[in-house]
């Protein structure tokens, strides 16, 4: 009995610490609808800055001032980021802000290593709270008791702030209906900046509070960001009380879960999230998002199929690509093959994001299913069969998961796709007998006729060109038009009889199948498959490619992939600080081209044509 109580209280301490890290994100999302990927980075920065300050300020006053000062400093940095970077792109697609925060995260990850060095840093314990109290005969750290108190206290403070101050009224109004509050004359800019700053303050505060419990390391942000996102979604985006409840549920289930299944921690949060979202689509205490009054501002220009001139040029490009093996060495061919594979992957995601308006955070799940499907099929069959087995596996997975996912919309849809991707990942990670666990499957090499770099390149070129062509055909088919209609105005589309669930489900499945084809090819290119191929970083990369190319254009995915993949391969080859370089690149590209590179080019062309008095021909 004493043990159960002790474990319960331990779970509360973890819950508090998780809540403190997550509440800021809930507030930021609730108001500005930004999924702030950099939340973990600021959490980490708070810890690092608190560490440095604690080396200079001593004593009880010094320790706590260090924590508060660090949070304030981080909040100031966050406000600076918001003012200089995020404000420019508020008018653009919501995802651009997500991508920008992702770029900020990458920059911060390398920056902390550059500033504080590579080693883990151990900060001091809290003065006066270094020991343990005897609770029911078991020693319990006093600092953890403080954390347990701080959690609800912060919750109460936030609720007071939101309900008893004028600022709080504005924040709650903005959470409910952003467009209306702008129409009523509230200065949105300062509201958003203040919300972002407060959210970052809370994140950094959460990070700084971890100083007495763990070492400050440059992987802290990755450790916390998925948990934080999940907890916020389970609770309901924008609802801080929901976040608290979710944190308690997740931590307690973990504290007791590990007594029965010690390995459950790997996947527990995602199982809970998947369960909650299937049963309560907006999280425990969340509200359905207010219906958008305007049609989605996604489209930049009219989409139309290739004109005859366009087709000719496409043929020329493909012919040029086919001739590459005559001029390129082995390495450039393998790089080109990899770029082609990612072009197909991004094109499949573009069907979902650009045409369907469905943002998926877990598209790598189908890429990975294709890779594993092909790898497992290779044990018994040849390469050709494996290249069919992979897409079939992706098709099956997308069929199954898609049905659940498309019942939701917006960020909840995205998080459910992430949950399913992570569940698949942890299955691949743990099911060592079949998938090899994290040691993966190796020896996945193409058959002799496709083994040379040139032959495999041609094989990939043929399959990728067919894949992208098919995706375009689907895009301009009646189905594609229906999909876009649902994206642009769901209410009207359903009014004329289009079934949202069915059409989006089909789109999800098709996208999954093509992603799986890309995954299967990738397995043969690298000769191995690892759980990484199902992981979140790959999903985010795909999203980055689509957004950088321009989600509002037809070929955005393809061009974005070519650009992003080529650049990132080159950057990783040139420097150890590739994250810094790629992060900066993303920030620059997103700030300069909010509609994506292709979108910006098209807009420029449109302006030029208008200046010359011609009509715009897309």
């Amino acid at each position: 009995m004493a043990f159960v109580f002790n474990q319960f209280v331990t779970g509360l301490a973890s819950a508090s610490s998780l809540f403190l890290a997550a509440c800021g994100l809930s507030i930021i999302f609730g108001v500005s609808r930004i999924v702030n990927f950099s939340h973990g980075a600021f959490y980490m920065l708070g810890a690092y800055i608190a560490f440095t300050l604690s080396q200079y300020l001593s004593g009880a006053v010094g320790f706590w001032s260090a924590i508060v000062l660090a949070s304030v400093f981080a909040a100031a940095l966050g406000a600076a980021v918001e003012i200089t970077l995020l404000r420019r792109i508020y008018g653009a697609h919501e995802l651009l802000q997500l991508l920008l925060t992702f770029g900020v995260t990458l920059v911060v990850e390398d920056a902390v290593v550059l500033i504080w060095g590579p080693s883990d840093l151990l900060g001091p314990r809290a003065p006066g709270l270094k020991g343990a109290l005897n609770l029911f005969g078991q020693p319990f750290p006093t600092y953890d008791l403080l954390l347990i108190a701080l959690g609800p206290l912060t919750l109460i403070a936030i609720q007071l702030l939101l309900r008893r101050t004028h600022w709080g009224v504005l924040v709650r109004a903005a959470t409910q209906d952003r467009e209306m509050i702008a129409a009523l004359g509230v200065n949105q800019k300062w509201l958003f900046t203040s919300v972002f700053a407060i959210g970052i303050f809370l994140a950094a505060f959460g990070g700084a509070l971890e100083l007495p419990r763990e070492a400050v390391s440059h992987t802290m942000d990755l450790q916390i960001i998925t948990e934080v996102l999940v907890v916020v979604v389970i609770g309901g985006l924008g609802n801080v009380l929901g976040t608290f409840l979710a944190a308690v549920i997740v931590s307690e289930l973990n504290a007791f879960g590990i007594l029965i299944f010690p390995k459950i921690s790997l996947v527990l949060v995602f199982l809970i999230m998947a369960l909650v979202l299937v049963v309560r689509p907006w999280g425990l205490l969340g509200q359905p998002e207010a219906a958008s009054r305007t049609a989605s501002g996604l489209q930049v220009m009219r989409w139309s199929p290739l004109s005859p001139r366009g087709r000719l040029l496409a043929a020329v490009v493909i012919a040029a690509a086919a001739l590459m093996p005559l001029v390129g060495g082995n390495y450039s061919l393998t790089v080109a093959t990899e770029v082609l594979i990612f072009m197909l992957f991004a094109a499949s995601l573009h069907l979902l994001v650009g045409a369907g308006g469905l943002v998926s955070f877990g598209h790598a799940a189908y890429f990975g299913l294709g890779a594993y499907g092909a790898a497992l099929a290779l044990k018994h069959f040849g390469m050709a069969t494996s290249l069919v087995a992979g897409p079939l596996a992706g098709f099956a997975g997308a069929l199954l998961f898609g049905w659940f996912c498309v019942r939701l919309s917006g960020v909840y849809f995205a998080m459910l796709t992430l949950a399913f991707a992570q569940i698949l990942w942890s299955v691949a990670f743990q099911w060592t007998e079949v998938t090899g666990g994290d040691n993966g499957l190796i020896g996945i090499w193409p058959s002799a006729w496709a083994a040379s770099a040139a032959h495999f390149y041609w094989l990939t070129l043929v399959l990728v060109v067919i894949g992208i062509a098919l995706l375009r055909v689907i895009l301009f088919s009646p189905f594609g038009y229906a999909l876009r209609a649902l994206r642009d105005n769901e209410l009207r589309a359903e009014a004329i009889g289009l079934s949202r669930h069915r059409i989006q489900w089909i789109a999800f499945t098709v996208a999954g199948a093509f992603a799986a084809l890309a995954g299967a090819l990738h397995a043969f290119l690298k000769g191995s498959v690892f759980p990484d191929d199902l992981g979140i970083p790959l999903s985010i990369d795909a999203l980055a490619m689509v957004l950088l190319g321009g989600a509002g254009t037809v070929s955005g995915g393809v061009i974005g992939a070519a650009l992003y993949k080529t650049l990132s391969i080159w950057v990783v080859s040139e420097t150890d600080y590739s994250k810094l370089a790629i992060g900066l690149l993303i920030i620059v590209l997103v700030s300069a081209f909010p509609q994506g590179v292709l979108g910006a080019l098209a807009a420029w062309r449109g302006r030029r044509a208008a200046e010359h008095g011609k009509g715009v021909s897309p």
Partner: protein
Amino acid sequence: MKTLSAILASVTLATALSGLGRPVFADDTIKIGDINSYSGLPAFTEPYRKGWQLALDEVNASGGINGKKLEVVSKDDGGKPADAVTAANELVANDGVVMLVGTFFSNIGLAVSDFANQKKTFFLASEPLTDAITWSKGNRYTFRLRPPNYVQAAMLAEEAAKLPAKKWATIAPNYEYGQSAVAVFKKLLSAKRPDIEWVGEQWPPQGKIDAGAVVAAIAETQPDAILNVTFGPDLVKLVREGNTRGLFKDRAVVSFLTGEPEYLDPLKDETPEGWIVTGYPWDAVTIPEHAAFLKAYQAKYNDYPRLGSVVGYATLKSAAAILAKAKSTDSEKLVDAAEGIRIDTPFGKIIFRKADHQSTLGTFVGKTVLKNGKGALTDVSYRDGAKYLPPESEVSALRPQN
């Protein structure tokens, strides 16, 4: 619009890849390709780089490889196996390296070793610890320097068997390294001490340990002794929670890798005492070859060596010795030269075994102690890997039969 995108596509591909061109070979230098997780684990890989740079200077200062200058082209793998394979491809196809060395994580080591097997390139894996690299997924072209999980588990099991403890609990990160470390340790210890009972186990996810819950769960099973396999930030959290909750009081603790400076130094004055660990007590090594290494390293870098430094140094020295013995850069000749070769390292002489291409490099086993507010090792002795590896006659059964 579509024409624009078509043009852009071709231009992107063309310009980006034209620069990658064809490989260029120079006749008077021999190039080695090094791949490691420089961005992913700088705490280990920065000392590793310093180690091989020191060795490279020494090799070139004493005449290079049969008169030719030795050069290292180093690439980061970003902590991802797919990027490591890209790096390996670039090194082999573009930079004209004659062999590959490096990697840290086990999954990256496996990916590169498979690549090396496919492209018939010599690969010396320096740090990956998974037994699979030389056994269940071993191949002709892959050699490994560091003592694998099996050896470290055997060393610790030997010490653990001497303890009176009968009830054991394990805490290990939930991935292949942790799983195999626990499995081998259990097997070897139970073989020596059939009376031992395994009363509890915890598998926190790597990097995300909920230390309070794990410590409480383990304490509840009331073990006499604990096996710990966590390292890095997880270890720090575990030590802090464990110390505060009294988990380690009156309990023996056996821990993998904790004695290595990369993992011991961050603990500072909270280093738990009396833990039986594998590690590297850089200031207390009595092996004669080490003194020269230590002096040169400190002179060049004004810093003390970490275990990564020794691994980097020994890796490059081994590569140089293999190239010198083979008198050729052909992979087959390198493999033949490497089998059975004896190399001098800061830990003494090692041999790369013919049967499984595993080196006999060992490690130190000792007890943790607090000295001047920092962690250090006492009762420490070097254990030769050769003593703990299964005999060569047995290992061929463990390798793929083809």
